[in-house]
């Protein structure tokens, strides 16, 4: 099997900013890869995000500056990456963020290259022969599988945010290669117009260090006001379970869990949350978990370092007072 002796990372760029998952992937790859680590960056013609990426010390950055491609059409991007790979040869592996973009683009490229792709990995390591062992959850995180792609290259994977830590690394050898002459045929079937989502809190829950999460047991208007006061006091961000996204003020970006966001705060306080697997799927990387629930057998308690059996609002008020 002929292939390019490099491991590749697709840089995810949202609104002219590199998504932090890209840095997490670079740090992880630098730790596990014997082969050179290459980042593929697609950016607008006036951007220079390679400067930000360099701080994490990959061996190589391939930049494609193209204003059409940054519109985010999966077909156009697949064509571009396929053309690039035709020029360079197929890398040993190619990993993407398990974001909406990554989970849409990577499988299309997988099909173009007719190779294997593992979704939503929580861990990666290489064996001596370059085999990438991909650990992924299934059945809403109730089962872990190890998946390999023995006979095809690139070995592809999407990786969840916040499972690896990003560390800056000084690498004076980082090479930047500009690809300028890549032809992009426009996909006339789709017209995509994008705008940034209004950021309710300055900090999103995926990046928050402290989270106060509220569930159906703490959802009256008065409960919410109290929870928000507690969050303010703690400098925490509010997260919710899925049923609360029915309320006007919350949406999928505030929702924690399998069909929402994975979070990794230092501290998570659950108020009136039962602990359904779809919810707990999103909190496995929270460091310290505190939960309050009236039900002494609530499943969430098993996932908690500290728990309080009783009314969530009373607990939240008392906590606010204790923090004075």
């Amino acid at each position, binding site marked *: 099997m002929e292939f390019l002796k490099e491991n590749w990372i697709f840089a995810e760029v949202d*609104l002219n900013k590199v998504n932090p998952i890209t840095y997490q992937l670079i740090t992880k790859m630098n730790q596990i890869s014997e082969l050179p680590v290459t980042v593929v960056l697609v950016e607008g013609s006036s951007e220079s995000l390679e400067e930000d990426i360099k701080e994490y010390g990959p061996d190589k950055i391939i930049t494609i500056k193209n204003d059409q491609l940054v519109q985010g059409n999966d077909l156009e991007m697949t064509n571009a990456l396929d053309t690039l790979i035709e020029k360079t040869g197929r890398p040993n592996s190619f990993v993407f963020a398990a974001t909406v973009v990554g989970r849409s683009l990577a499988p299309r490229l*997988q099909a173009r290259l007719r190779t294997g792709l593992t979704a939503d990995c929580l861990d990666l390591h290489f064996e001596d022969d370059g085999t990438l062992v991909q650990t992924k959850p299934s*059945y809403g995180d109730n089962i872990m599988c190890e*998946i390999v792609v023995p006979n095809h290259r690139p070995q592809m994977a999407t990786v969840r945010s916040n499972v690896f830590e990003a560390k800056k690394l000084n690498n004076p050898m980082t090479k930047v290669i500009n690809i300028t002459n890549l032809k992009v045929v426009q996909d006339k*079937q*789709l017209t995509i117009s994008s705008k940034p989502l209004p950021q309710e809190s300055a900090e999103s829950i995926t990046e928050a260090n402290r989270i106060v999460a509220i569930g159906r047991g703490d959802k009256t208007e008065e409960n919410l006001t109290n929870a928000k006061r507690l969050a303010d006091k703690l400098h925490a961000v509010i997260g919710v379970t899925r049923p609360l996204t029915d309320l006007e003020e919350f949406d999928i970006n505030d929702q924690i869990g399998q069909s929402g*966001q994975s979070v990794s705060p230092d501290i998570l306080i659950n108020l009136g949350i039962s602990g359904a697997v779809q919810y707990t799927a999103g909190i496995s990387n929270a460091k310290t978990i505190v939960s309050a629930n009236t039900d002494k057998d609530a499943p969430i308690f098993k996932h908690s*370092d500290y*728990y309080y059996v009783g009314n969530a609002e009373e607990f939240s008020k008392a906590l606010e007072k204790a923090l004075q």
Partner: protein
Amino acid sequence: MKIVVGIKQVPETTNVKINEKTKNIDRRGISGVINQYDRHALEAAFEIKAKTNAEVIVMTMGPDDFVVSLQEALALGADSAVLLSDRAFAGADTLATGYVLSEAIKKIGDVDLVLLGQQSVDADTGQMGPIISEFLDISQVTYASKLDVEEGGLRIKRYLENIEQDITAKLPVLVTVTDQANDPKYVNIVEIAKSFEKEVTTWHASDLNLDADRVGQAGSPSVVRSISSPKEVVKDNYKLPDNPQDAADELVKILKDKNILVEDK
């Protein structure tokens, strides 16, 4: 307009365990249901059908007992159903599954819209949509949160982590549907029984124009090497006192002692 909706039958609960003897997933006693997201894909198809008189064909690849889910989809309002079933399809990864489904869609012919769920709740990959789009050589819109038919195509809302997209799509196109898109209807047993009058067509490998090297286990680049129960993160499960203020005071003290809550923040 001709719409194909792909559905997958999944275990009723994701709360599955590993059988210690066989080291395989123990599905004993767990019955199959339509993947929740596929109900939203079906509902999206029915809403379009109500407006445009579209024909809705529901399709699944899987063992013969997946026919139950097809019957339910017929009862919900699909016009016809196709079961893709063959020993040769067994052990397929996403690439091989997508190949068979795309060949079946080609066989149906003149399909304007392919609708899928955003992902299955068992394997969770969400890869089927992009793979089928690629094999059909059509454009794709994944994770649609809202779909409306309009002159010549669809208008779709889609959310990335920090971005909201407004997309107009000309037909043909493939769209995967989130659970935000609509509220699926359910049917009762009587209606399901009535749907037995509608026929389910079964296609085997020989009914499709397939390259034998690209189906089933042989056509699957991915190999599941092992499955296991996740490492239980052992949590202390420390019960705080019953009085709320005592509980709060003790918690704050512990968190400060452990440097989890630092004063200055």
